[in-house]
């Protein structure tokens, strides 16, 4: 029971820290402070990714021969911690490198892998994941986007939704329905596609948070070669599960203010009977948030321990997002209420902490849904960790075309 690094881990951390200190400074000197979601921000992100790849710090667990770092999972975690401390973490590559490219590596032919893996590691090309559909939601396999065989090609028509970053991505992995006459999971096929094709149209979704990170993506007679298929025809669900399994590892970290930030706010504001920090009801909530946040941190340490002992972490990591997303929502709401009437303001120049709590309040509902809703994650824990029965599936043996559909 020790959360100090082993000598090897400490040596790696020191090496990473030294490298980061120099490289991060050089990177900042070159790019300065940029506003997210601008072309300059993207250029800086790609530049940083290339710098990391050159030093073996991109895709640390992947073999060096394909551009990775040839390292261990625990080294990857250590570098991630140090990179966060250095204040350099761009989110553009998470989905591509965490979920899409591993799927390409698992199912594509060697030429395709050769063509795509290395540019993705260097940040030259960015990938998105085209799974969700308006009618599907958590029921991913209920998708309707059709791919119809036409000689050596497939012709694709349909619509995806909630595609993160589709507007700036170069390639994507696309899950389609190729056979509606069989039950939903059996008629799916996966492809990789070029997002710049004129038959692909991206429409950004204006979110309740005000941002536009997600997109609707429309396909109108998009032609792809059969060689772009990932896995066998009709085996798309199996391929998608590989992607979704990687999703749990890639997504789930908490984004947003935590107990430290709200404690800082509570020091500055007046409460009902004195400083807000002295409010007993607030102090109890603060203690709960600390215990949850630290609990998650130490849960990650337990995962690292399992990794370093050669074990594979299970779906236990699902607890991370359930806790952090809910906590973010509650914490942000408490902060906004603490500001009393002033809490209405969202202007970063006016609202305390540059309105980060107001932004979190509007972002948290999405976080509780993205990458698996609270409800789906609890099902995962119940079924895969605790071994409880799956939900009743009335559509299991029904051909997709005969399934009732609502909105």
């Amino acid at each position, binding site marked *: *029971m020790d959360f100090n690094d082993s000598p090897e881990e400490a040596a790696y951390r020191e090496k990473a820290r030294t490298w980061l200190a120099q490289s991060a400074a050089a990177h900042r000197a070159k790019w300065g402070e940029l506003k997210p979601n601008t072309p300059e921000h993207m250029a800086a992100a790609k530049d940083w990714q290339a710098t990391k790849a050159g030093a073996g710090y991109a895709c640390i667990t992947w073999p060096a021969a394909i551009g990775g770092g040839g390292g261990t999972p625990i080294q990857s975690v250590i570098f991630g911690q140090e990179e966060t401390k250095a204040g350099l973490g761009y989110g553009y590559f998470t989905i591509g490198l965490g979920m899409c490219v591993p799927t390409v590596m698992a199912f594509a032919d060697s030429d395709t892998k050769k063509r795509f893996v290395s540019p993705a590691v260097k940040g030259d090309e960015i990938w998105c994941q085209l799974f969700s559909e308006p009618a599907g939601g958590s029921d991913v396999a209920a998708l309707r986007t059709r791919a119809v065989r036409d000689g050596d090609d497939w012709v694709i028509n349909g619509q995806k939704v909630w595609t993160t970053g589709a507007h700036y991505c170069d390639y994507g992995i696309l899950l389609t329905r190729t056979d509606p006459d069989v039950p939903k999971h059996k008629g799916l096929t996966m492809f990789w596609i070029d997002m710049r094709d004129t038959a692909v149209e991206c429409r950004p979704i204006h979110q309740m948070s005000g941002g536009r990170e997600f997109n609707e993506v429309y396909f109108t007679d998009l032609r792809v070669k059969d060689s772009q298929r990932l896995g066998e025809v009709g085996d798309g669900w199996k391929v998608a599960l590989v992607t979704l399994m990687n999703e749990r590892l890639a997504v789930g970290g908490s984004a947003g203010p935590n107990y430290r930030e709200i404690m800082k706010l509570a020091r500055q504001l007046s409460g009902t009977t004195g400083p807000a920090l002295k409010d007993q009801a607030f102090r109890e909530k603060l203690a*709960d948030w600390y*215990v949850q946040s*630290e609990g998650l941190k130490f849960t990650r340490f337990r995962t690292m321990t399992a990794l370093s002992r050669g074990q594979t972490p299970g779906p236990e990591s699902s607890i991370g997002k359930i*806790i952090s997303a809910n906590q973010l929502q509650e914490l942000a709401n408490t902060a906004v209420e603490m500001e009393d009437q002033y809490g209405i303001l969202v202007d970063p120049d006016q609202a305390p902490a540059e309105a980060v709590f107001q932004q979190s309040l509007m972002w948290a509902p999405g976080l509780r849904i993205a990458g698996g809703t609270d409800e789906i994650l609890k*099902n995962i824990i119940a079924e895969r*960790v605790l071994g409880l029965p799956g939900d009743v599936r009335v559509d299991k043996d029904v051909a997709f075309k005969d399934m009732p559909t609502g909105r």
Partner: protein
Amino acid sequence: MDFDYSDDQKFLKDEARKFLAAHCDVAVVRGVLDNADRSFDEKLWKGVAEQGWLGASIPEEHGGLGLGRVELCAIAEELGRVVAPIPFASTVYFLAEGVLAHGTDGQKAAILPRIAAGQLIGCLATSEGPGVVGPATLTTRVEGGKLFGTKIPVTDGDVADTALVLASEGGRPGLYLVDLKQAGVARETLKSLDPTRGVAKLTFDGAVAERLGAAGAGFDIVQAILDRAAVLLAFEQLGGADRCLEMAKEYALGRYAFGRVIAGYQAIKHKLADMYVKNEVARSNAYYGAWALNDDAPELPIAAAAARIAASEAFWFASKESIQVHGGMGFTWDVDCHLYYRRSRQLSLVAGAPKVWKERLVSQLEQKNAA
């Protein structure tokens, strides 16, 4: 990074589980629950002593096994799983740990070997009435080495040989070792929420009291003892919470309603998932506490508070929702749910309520931030 039990510790834990499966099945617990004259199981106590658990973390020079605190945590977790009806926490976490940390060489030599041998039961006596114990309300006093006043309730005070008593001397709080078998000590056994742990009212009228630790430092020493005990109690709570989840799961997998096992309904699945999440958060915080306790780290007060808060919440939730999953059966005397429900309350209160620990945690965070 090594945030788990080691292989040796796992072995010890497995052995403890096997021993308790053989010697502390629920009949043993019910043997105490159903008999108002007994507040612990003497046979189990003797067996636990023979296993060396009472002296697991007592140095060999004082008759113990000289193992670390993580080993003691592993044992605590297993004792919690079976709601063991023995005064282990009072004797080991409060008295032995207190004497180890604050006793003189003479006090250690007088007390620790007897604890390790299973010849001495301890207890901690701080409470004097409803509400939080504080300097303003402390009425028990020591004059000329003699103790006067009343402590209520004292867990295991009905069977203990030696008590640690918080009392004031010359207006300053001190902590005193008191032999409970002397004249000048009166005991009255009381009924409690958890009859598998005895509770007494202790009245002192000129009992000989020997100070443990510095004069005037009583509250600080008690807090230091509670910090250490909180981690160990958290492991008992964790063991209990995990067992509640298992029991609820086993029941839900075997109980049919509306043509299906109830474990297949989302309302039940999500309830069990919520239990699991709370238990894992508690386990992770408990591990941090175990590390801080074992290493005597400066982080101990914060780690102990976090471990206690998380474990109290997890055990409370798991014990009450396990009854809910069991339905009407869960409300009967014959089903074991209430043993855990009772113990969850006993463990949450015996070292100060979660609310008190939340305040302690936030105060510590404030200080840390200010430093």
